[in-house]
């Protein structure tokens, strides 16, 4: 495996090719907040909290560190006033879910009064159910602002005997709804 050398927050860091900036930066001591990230899961890049500043040659950009592979010569800053401003706004958009992050960022309320519920669509439950539990009971229904987590019609009851993803949920949705009939089954009964 090739060794990569890069600079993170002023320190020179050695890393293994193929690792993500997030993993390497955390190993080097950076405290990067994440919500949707989980070492057991493949899906990444949903919450954007892990954004860091990367300078490559003359180009400066903000990237999601969970999805960015390490490269030689990168100059990385894991926290800047600009980055923190964005992270705080994202946490405000998550409120009142992900309260652990709200605490970290001193967010006690949200200035946004549009609709929100007990699910922030981080995807941990859906992806865990698919990739680790191999039960495929949960899925993402719809797209855009209508996207929601749903139970496969007829399978919602399986969650009661499983509960493996309950601890992953930062909004309470799965815990609150697992016992019910597949949330949208009523709409799909065809009659």
């Amino acid at each position: 495996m090739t060794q990569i050398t890069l600079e993170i927050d002023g320190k020179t860091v050695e890393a293994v090719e193929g690792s993500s900036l997030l993993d390497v930066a955390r190993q080097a001591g950076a405290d990067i907040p994440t919500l949707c990230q989980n070492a057991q899961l493949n899906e990444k890049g949903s919450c954007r909290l892990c954004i860091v500043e990367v300078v490559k040659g003359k180009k400066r950009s903000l990237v999601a560190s969970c999805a960015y592979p390490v490269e030689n010569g990168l100059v990385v800053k894991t926290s800047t006033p600009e980055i923190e401003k964005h992270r705080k706004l994202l946490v405000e958009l998550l409120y009142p879910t992900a309260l652990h992050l709200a605490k970290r960022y001193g967010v006690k309320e949200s200035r946004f009064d549009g609709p929100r519920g007990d699910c922030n669509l981080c995807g941990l439950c859906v992806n865990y159910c698919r990739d680790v539990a191999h039960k495929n009971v949960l899925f993402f229904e719809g797209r855009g602002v209508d996207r929601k987590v749903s139970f496969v019609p007829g399978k919602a009851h399986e969650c009661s005997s499983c509960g493996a993803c309950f601890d992953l949920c930062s909004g309470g949705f799965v815990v609150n709804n697992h016992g019910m009939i597949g949330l949208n089954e009523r709409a799909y009964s065809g009659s």
Partner: protein
Amino acid sequence: MPRLENPHELVTLRVRSRVQRAAKPQRISICGGTGCLAAKASGCIEALRAAIERHHLSNKVELQETGCHGLCERGPIVVVAPQQYCYLGVTAADADEIVEQSIIQGRPVERLMYQNDGAERVASLEKIPFYRDQQRLLLDANTRIDPRSIDDYIAIGGYTALERALIHMRPEEIIASVKESGLRGRGGGGFPTGKKWETTRNAPGDLKYVVVNADEGDPGAYMDRSLLEGNPHGILEGLIIGAFAIGAQQGYVYVRQEYPLAVENTVRAIEQAREYGLLGQDILGSGFNFDVDVHRGAGAFVSGESSALMAAIEGHVGRPRSKYVHTSVSGLWDRPTNLNNVETWANIPHIINKGADWFANVGTKTSPGTKVFSLVGKVQNSGLVEVPMGMSLRKIVYDIGGGIPGNKRLKAVQTGGPSGGFLPESMLDVPVDFDELRNAGSMMGSGGMIVMDEDSCMVDAARFYVDFLAHESCGKCLPCREGLRQLLHILNRIVAGDGREGDLELMEELCDTLAATALCALGTSAPNPVRSAIKHFRSEFEVHIREKRCPSLACMDLFHYDINTRLCNGCSLCQKNCPSDAIRGEHKKPKTIDQESCVKCGNCETVCPPKLDAVSKVAGRAQLPEHSPLLRQKTG
């Protein structure tokens, strides 16, 4: 149809097709694009065919159904060659006159000729202002060939570029030529095409792909549809040349689901090309193998994004990928894939045939070539226009488009679709050029150009785009999904009269984070319409927020209808036509509107006799009685 084993056989076929075309000295071309078909062009075609037969002219006159002619507002369109008489708004009843006057007597039919605003009538196509100022490099073929006939395309020179490229050029030379031409992607990104091809060619791996992006999701844009419907071989030729240059053996044309005729014509074109051996093994004896398949979209705007489109072809949900590796290096099935827009591919045969220098000299230095725009909205001559880059918006809207109907004032021109921005009247001299438009605060985008007049509300326009994006977003990433949700909520409050101090600043914050952190270009460019509307029309937003008024009289909650009792003569026409029983007043007495019941349908204004003109739209909310439940709703 016998296979063409080598270039010589192609040349022979071309000569034969030309002779066949020239055999009939006169030709009637009628636009058979989806638009004109909707305007009953098929009835005209049948009527013309019958008229030709009745006069026993079938062996002298070629009747041809072509692709889109561009002046869509005035379809069905008929062009009579060789004189190039252009007739607009043709109906089946005109068929006899066209045949008798123009074919037999060689005279134009005056009443079908182009006219704008009482000016003189214009007979021939090149003199019509709409066409005169265009440079129809790509669209010209649409008026001359039947898209269902490969021989037609070959007769006008089709597949000469393929022959030149495959037989007389090396892949590296082709790429160098495309680079030198300066061609930039026509899908909106404006990335240098030659450079993209080179990256894909140089990427490691033997299996490579080329893709035509015909997903054209920008509302208000239909250039790609007309190019693909009207001349599918023109795109195929470019694709095969590109595949050869890049080293790809398989290509895909991804067409959005809403374009059935484009799919049909492309599938047929591919089958015809295969039969002639222009697709498949050992094309024209060059040793190059390449084939193409068509993929249909299923109704999702976001799937037009490169990585999303490739995910869809692979059979996954058409969602963009959070990857920082270009699809040129790792695309379809993780293999190097070159994706270009329909219009980009359509330019390639012209670059090969006429040379990179020629192309580089059309348009501007940094944006060479032409661009097809769909000029729509509040404009007289709505349709597809193709102009050299560098032409000013003013010229396009006024000289080509014929200006604003009803003598209204122009308010803004929107370019770039949901990723673009609004340009106010004061910026109308901006030339259409990738960099100039970006510097002006908008972008080229795929070519949608929407004209808005004084009756268009810019707050409503910003809200329209945010609503579109909120529902077309894939919904995966937080800033885009939740950012758009909150932006939409704020804009909905504002147009309902519930805007607050601080709303503009809040929106600006949301825009900043969305632009900086979203996963794909849909999200990062979503703020553009909002930012540009606020930038150029801030006072309009402020009036909505502070005064609860819509000056353009467009936002339903911020205007009301009013009956002037001094002008009203009590005729009761409005009362009889009110669907919600909202007009009060006894017979023959002046009427008043019960604002609580009014649904703002506007019937009263429409039916009030013009000589009385007693009903008008007034900006601002109506005075509602204090106890009104409608008032309570707003402050909830």
